[in-house]
């Protein structure tokens, strides 16, 4: 009996690596610490009432961002481990299998559990406020989306200490990810972690499309809509077309592994190439899903901090939709070398290059917006400016990769690694950080201290070039990706060492950001945003106090101009005040525990499927079904009214004498 338990424990828990024992200990300590603090300060009720059951889009947004920053840390540690391993030849810090796990989890976490939630966090914070709405279209679904993402991410991360991590690459190509070659549970963790959070992403896409179509303030026509909201809209359109493909692809891979199917196997007529086509039909649009909102942020930030209207607003909008459509015609450039034939390669090479045109249009628009503007170099603006030269490099090397014959040389080399990190860090992460700094006062009611922010910026920015520019050369020198070690005879050592130094510089940048947030919290009284409009913003979110009250707008604004808040401020300066409609009772959605509980059941079901344990997945699925039925039956009294008097009192309190 004892032997059996021992045997089970040794396969169930990941053992044998000191780093993993260290992780076990730190996870246990962190958990005990959190439980202790919550109990000691009697915060369990507060946590449950204000956060776990909330349907307020602003709080959901904050939870997304918090989780994303944690995942950035986890993915970042993976990156540093890889860079240490590759700093010089013949390092034995990570054995090859462990290295495979680390690059797999690094990629998966950074794209799906860091970039996506950070993006959704910013959607949640900014979009309803920008369009003058009180909430998103489906607040309950919004909370559910967050908890599905969170549980999916936790399930995926659990693989680190229980069962073993996936190691077939971040897109898990078969046949490597098939049962035959990945017999452990790691791949199952990958499938269910992404699947569960992917359902949440799809729901968010639907939610924000409906919000933007239906809930804009009166007077906000499509062409008066803030450009960030436009970018969210185009990103969500890609989400609803791309994510169902991911859902199916992962489901089919799971059916292969779990049900003995033959979709992607090597025998019985399966076709591994089918998977690679499907995954990139989601995967390439995914890149544009995450980058378009970053473009939206740059547009807002550059306009506000140059004190100029955005140059070429309409061309920006059209460019985003061009990109959204073209993004679906580029997937095959990921496998030019796999024998699709000259015609197919030529088609996808050209459609990939064509995307550079709308992107170029946008870059020129940003430059022209800055031209003759009164630029102030606050942190959000610094990140936005730093993005432009970098994106030029990312864009140009992207066009190089899209040349099919040349791609045979670059394919799966460090050139490619350098290119997509340029695009995804310099394009996406820089943008989201700019957005985070930009909207931080709106979220929390205080600005972040600028000095540590600028230190962080320079460490990140310099570290970024030091890390990735050498990798372009390494790629051309023949270094391939997914390489766990190399010999002295390759001549790759100096550049790899430089690259590792760069990675650590970025890590220091991250620490400065943590410090910046801590200093901000410590000095929040001094940094308090009393105006609600610390940057001199142009969109509606800056017309209300910071942090926004739970109902957002005491009265729904009437929009007249594209940069309505600027126009409004001009008028007020001239002494023209708009007549405010009387404050009335406000209709609000009630908090609900169902999203959280339902996601826990999803987690249980997912865990059961990972191990093939029916005593987990059957109760889990039943729990999910019961939650859905409960929601349907109790959806009739899901709202309440805040009385007008209470709104007046709140407004008077936050606006002072006004």
């Amino acid at each position, binding site marked *: 009996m004892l032997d059996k338990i021992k045997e089970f424990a040794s396969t169930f828990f990941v053992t044998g690596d000191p780093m993993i024992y260290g992780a076990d200990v730190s996870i246990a300590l962190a958990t005990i610490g959190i439980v202790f603090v919550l109990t000691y300060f009697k915060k369990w009720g507060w946590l449950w009432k204000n956060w776990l059951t909330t349907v307020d889009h602003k709080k959901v947004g904050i939870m997304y961002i918090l989780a994303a920053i944690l995942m950035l840390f986890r993915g970042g540690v993976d990156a540093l481990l890889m860079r240490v391993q590759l700093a010089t030849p013949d390092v034995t810090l990570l054995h090859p299998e462990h290295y495979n796990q680390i690059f797999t989890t690094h990629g998966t976490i950074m794209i799906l559990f860091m970039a996506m939630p950070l993006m959704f966090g910013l959607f949640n914070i900014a979009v309803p406020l920008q369009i003058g709405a*009180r909430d998103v*279209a*489906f607040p309950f679904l919004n909370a559910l989306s967050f908890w599905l993402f969170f549980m999916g991410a936790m399930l995926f991360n659990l693989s680190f200490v229980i069962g073993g991590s996936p190691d077939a690459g971040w897109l898990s190509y078969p046949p490597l990810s098939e049962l035959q070659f990945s017999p452990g549970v790691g791949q199952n963790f990958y499938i269910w972690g992404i699947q569960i959070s992917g359902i949440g992403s*799809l729901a968010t*896409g*639907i*939610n924000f*499309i*409906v919000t933007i*179509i*239906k*809930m*804009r*303030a*009166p*007077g*906000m*026509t*499509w062409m008066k809509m803030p450009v960030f909201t436009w970018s969210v809209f185009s990103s969500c359109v890609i989400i*609803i*077309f791309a*994510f*169902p*493909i991911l*859902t*199916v*692809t992962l*489901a*089919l891979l799971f*059916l*292969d592994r779990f*049900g*003995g*199917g*033959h*979709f992607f*196997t090597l*025998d*019985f*007529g*399966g*076709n591994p190439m*089918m998977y690679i086509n*499907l995954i990139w039909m989601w995967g390439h649009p995914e890149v544009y899903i995450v980058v378009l909102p970053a473009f939206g942020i740059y547009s807002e930030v550059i306009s506000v901090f140059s004190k100029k209207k955005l140059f070429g607003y309409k061309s920006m909008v059209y460019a985003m939709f061009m990109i959204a459509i073209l993004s679906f015609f580029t997937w095959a450039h990921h496998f030019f070398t796999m024998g699709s034939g000259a015609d197919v390669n030529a088609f996808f090479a050209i459609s990939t290059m064509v995307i550079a045109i709308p992107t170029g249009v946008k870059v020129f628009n940003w430059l022209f917006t800055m031209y003759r503007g009164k630029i102030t170099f606050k942190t959000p603006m610094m990140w936005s400016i730093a993005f432009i030269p970098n994106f030029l490099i990312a864009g140009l090397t992207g066009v190089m990769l899209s040349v099919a014959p040349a791609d045979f040389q670059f394919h799966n080399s460090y050139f490619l690694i350098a290119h997509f990190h340029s695009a995804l860090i310099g394009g996406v992460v820089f943008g989201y950080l700019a957005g985070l700094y930009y909207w931080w006062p709106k979220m929390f009611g205080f600005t972040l201290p600028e000095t540590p922010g600028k230190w962080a910026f320079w460490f990140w920015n310099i570290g970024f070039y030091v890390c990735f520019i050498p990798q372009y050369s390494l790629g051309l020198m023949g270094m391939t990706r997914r390489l766990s070690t190399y010999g002295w005879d390759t001549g790759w050592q100096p550049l790899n060492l430089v690259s590792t130094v760069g990675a650590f510089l970025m890590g220091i940048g991250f620490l400065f950001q943590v410090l910046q947030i801590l200093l901000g919290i410590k000095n929040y009284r001094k940094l308090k945003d009393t105006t609600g409009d610390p940057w001199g913003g142009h969109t509606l979110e800056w017309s209300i106090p910071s942090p926004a009250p739970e109902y957002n*707008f005491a*009265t*729904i604004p009437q929009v007249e101009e594209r940069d309505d808040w600027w126009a409004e401020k001009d008028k007020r300066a001239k002494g023209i005040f708009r007549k405010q409609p009387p404050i*009335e*009772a*406000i*209709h609000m959605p009630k908090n609900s525990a169902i999203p959280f509980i339902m996601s826990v059941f999803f987690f249980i079901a997912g865990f059961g499927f990972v191990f093939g344990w029916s005593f987990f997945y059957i109760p889990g699925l039943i729990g999910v079904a019961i939650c859905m*039925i409960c929601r*349907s*039956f109790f*959806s*009739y009294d899901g709202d309440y009214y805040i009385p007008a008097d209470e709104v007046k009192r709140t407004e008077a309190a936050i606006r002072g004498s006004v």
Partner: protein
Amino acid sequence: MAQAAAHHSHDHDHGHHDPQELKMLGFWIFLVTDVILFSTLFATFVVLRNNTAGGPGGAELFNMTGVIIETFLLLTSSFTSGLAVLAMNKGSMKGLISWLIVTAILGLGFIGFEVYEFVEMVHEGANFGTSAFLSAFFTLVGTHGLHVSLGLVWMIGLMFQLKKRGLTPETKGKVSALSLYWHFLDAVWIFLLTVVYLMGVM
């Protein structure tokens, strides 16, 4: 137009938007995502349909009589779900419930025949794991069957809610969404019939 619509809701609802209208649009977009889901499965099936790996193909396996009966049942149920909505619009709770019951029985019949068909195939040795063709077949047709089954659970739950709540804007919205879903499944079945069965036996 957006302006006019927003004004409209603003005037009578103090900035709060008509929840039924939002839900209906959301549901339409959900159906778009479901179209993509089925399209992906169809594409997979079309790529793999000749990969029988020496096992049986569609022509040997499909029992067209059963398929025609299934089609007849599902198409009729789509019609009766339309009659249910018509009854609802007339304000007749009795008509609504009765037509929903008829729809559910027809839907159950469809599922019954489909399950029977699957069991028959498995008895003949045509399993999910026999070949890529059969994996794709069972997944595509099974996903549709699962959608129909979930629709049945939804329909039954909704009948209880209708009994309890009566005809309110909320319950009416739910019936409309269900009916939309049911018609959508019907449309998917037409494609299944054509691409899987008719092209399979041809």
